[in-house]
């Protein structure tokens, strides 16, 4: 006698993996890395347990932003190849569940940050989540080709939140870390958009190459790169980075400028696309190397690395 499978008749909902996917783990790992650099580069000492809690709150806050972003963008995510496999378009998680999940984690991360670390960092974390959801996702993303520029600020806040978690205050050094990511974001995303903008065009997201054309995008990439390269060296001038960082940032900034110039001048055919792809890939390496060296110098000790640099 056949027994009816009652379990299969009940909607099982999303799995734990689907909820983890709502948190955008790859973005979260980048946020955690830059926040860790801000936290470690900040002056003074912080108890490891409190530092861990600060990073946890920043990570959960970033994940909550991702869930809220997927809730709001569910309509266009379903139409784009890159995002069609996300939990909401696949029907694994309902938009309401994603909204509730995102709101709960946002509130929890801010409250725990305030109660266990400090309220200045909690306020900045709350503002970051608000900025990403309301300013970028809800407002700018679908209304202006400058969406990446302003929206990039949301991605630039984490090292500043890490710094404020360690010191309780915003200082010039943390603003420089913010500025490096802020001015890095447009050339990074526009390089990608130059050869992959069809998806955005189809769903009506006004990326710069779609609205203003490839030539204008190449010009903007060059301008932002000209600002970014000297900004990358500024931590040495302000005294919170050492000799190794100085050398790496100068060389990496030079390569960034060379690649951006090639994107600006080589515009046609496969070579044009190849230059854009090359800049996109190098931009990831650029930011990672700069922040990794800054982290290493602060963990190992700038003086020790400086003496190694002299030997080399």
């Amino acid at each position, binding site marked *: 006698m056949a027994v009816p499978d009652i*379990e299969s008749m009940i909607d099982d909902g999303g799995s734990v993996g689907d*909820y983890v996917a709502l948190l955008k783990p790859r973005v979260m790992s980048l946020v955690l890395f830059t926040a860790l650099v801000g936290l470690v580069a900040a002056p003074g000492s912080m108890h490891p347990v409190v530092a861990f809690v600060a990073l946890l709150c920043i990570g959960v806050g970033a994940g909550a932003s991702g869930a809220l972003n997927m809730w709001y963008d569910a309509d266009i995510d379903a139409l784009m190849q890159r995002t069609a496999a996300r939990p909401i378009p696949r029907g694994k998680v309902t938009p309401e569940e994603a909204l509730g999940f995102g709101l709960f984690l946002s509130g929890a991360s801010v409250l725990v940050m305030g109660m*266990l670390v400090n309220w200045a960092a909690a306020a900045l974390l709350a503002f970051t989540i608000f900025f990403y959801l309301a300013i970028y996702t809800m407002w700018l993303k679908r209304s202006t080709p400058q969406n990446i520029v302003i929206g990039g600020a949301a991605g630039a806040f984490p090292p500043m939140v890490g710094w404020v978690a360690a010191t309780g205050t915003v200082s010039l050094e943390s603003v420089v870390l913010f500025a490096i990511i802020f001015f890095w974001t447009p050339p990074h995303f526009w390089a990608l958009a130059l050869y992959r903008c069809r998806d955005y065009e189809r769903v009506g997201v006004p990326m710069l190459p779609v609205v203003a054309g490839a030539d204008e995008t190449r010009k903007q990439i060059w301008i932002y790169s000209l600002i970014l390269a000297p900004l990358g060296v500024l931590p040495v001038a302000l005294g919170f980075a050492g000799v190794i960082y100085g050398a790496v940032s100068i060389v990496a900034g030079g390569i960034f400028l060379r690649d951006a110039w090639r994107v600006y001048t080589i515009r046609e055919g496969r070579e044009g696309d190849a230059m854009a792809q090359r800049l996109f890939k190098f931009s990831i390496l650029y930011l990672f190397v700069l922040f990794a060296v800054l982290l290493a110098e602060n963990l190992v000790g700038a003086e020790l690395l400086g003496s190694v640099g002299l030997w080399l």
Partner: protein
Amino acid sequence: MAVADANKTAVVTPGQRRRSIAIAVGLGALAVIFFAVTMVRLGGNVAKRMEMEGKASRSITLPAGQETSVGQ
């Protein structure tokens, strides 16, 4: 029909069980974090207070006339 409904609500699917475990782990981790940070913050302050009390008691045991500021 009523029996079928009752069966339906009684069943806990593997997915629901895993989600419940994940929530329990999350809440447990939160409790551990609050405990750990409280110990970190309180521990330092308790140590300072004990140190201060120790200093005060040592001052009180000094011979009369050598220490006059205690308790003022």
